[in-house]
């Protein structure tokens, strides 16, 4: 009897977990489409819930967007067409990877510029050091160094 109750409890738990997963399951005939659907819905940000991708949000608008992605895929549209379709309605905001354009040159450019700048700085510093160490001894000092070294050798 106790075992039965435990079983019933476990089954109850399972049902609860299933009802929590509100994100629908879609079936695809074509595994390529399925892959593209997964990639597209993971790359778009839900406009309402700020930092959730639409593939993982329960917001009604995220469900609408998934539905639209699904329909456009079935119609045979390309990934970039689908992205354009969404961006013309909801704006660049929904892209986790902003596209390269006038407004985003700075965004994409700054990290590259920093890497170039840092590399230049390192090269300059290394050169300066090398230069400095070879110039560090005056002629007098060189003579003295040679004398010291010679004395050590001869003793």
């Amino acid at each position: 009897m106790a075992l039965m109750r435990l079983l019933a409890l476990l089954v109850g738990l399972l049902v609860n977990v299933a009802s929590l997963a509100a994100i629908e399951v879609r079936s695809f005939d074509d595994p390529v489409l399925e892959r593209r659907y997964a990639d597209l819905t993971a790359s778009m940000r839900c406009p309402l819930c700020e930092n959730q991708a639409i593939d993982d949000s329960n917001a009604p608008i995220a469900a609408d967007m998934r539905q639209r992605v699904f329909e456009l895929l079935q119609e045979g549209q390309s990934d970039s067409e689908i992205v354009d379709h969404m961006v013309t309605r909801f704006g660049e905001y929904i892209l986790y990877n902003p596209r390269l354009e006038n407004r985003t040159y700075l965004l994409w450019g700054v990290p590259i510029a920093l890497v170039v700048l840092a590399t230049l700085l390192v090269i300059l510093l290394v050169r300066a050091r090398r230069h400095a160490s070879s110039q560090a001894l005056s002629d007098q000092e060189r003579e003295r160094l040679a004398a010291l070294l010679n004395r050590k050798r001869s003793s």
Partner: protein
Amino acid sequence: MKRWLLLLLPLGFVGIALFFYQGLGRDPTARDSALMARAFPAFEAVTLEDANRRVDETLLRGEVTLVNVWGEWCPACKQEMPQLLELADHGIRMVGVNYRDRREKGRAFLDEYGDPFELNIFDPEGSLGFDLGVYGAPETFLVDADGVIRYHHKGYIAPSDVQARILPEVEKWR
């Protein structure tokens, strides 16, 4: 190492601190509609009032119109209604989009809270809402006489917004 290079450290810190500080007061949800300065999307629908009356985007030509997206299920839409009635009293043409709603519920809502709209576009599937980039009601669009979207108010129109934001925008595009 040259001494003055050390100055860059506090300067860099102050620069970054200022950059973050000016971001603190900002509303992270504020952003322009993607449809700004573009034509109101094409649509075909019936009205909430009359299931046989077909309307399309030409409805919004010829006069500056405020298009308000609302639903019976949306609590902020109820609070917004007095402001919409006030705007209608200023002689502004108002058109509603009854978004993701049921006909009888939408009608009951207007009976209870007032009806500032010339008519309401019935959008039970949210397809016009989708084309407008609506992701939560209420949202309000100002459409000029040529059917171009000129202003977008995301969310609830507060009583102070009527004078401070909506009326100046309407005047600007009239």
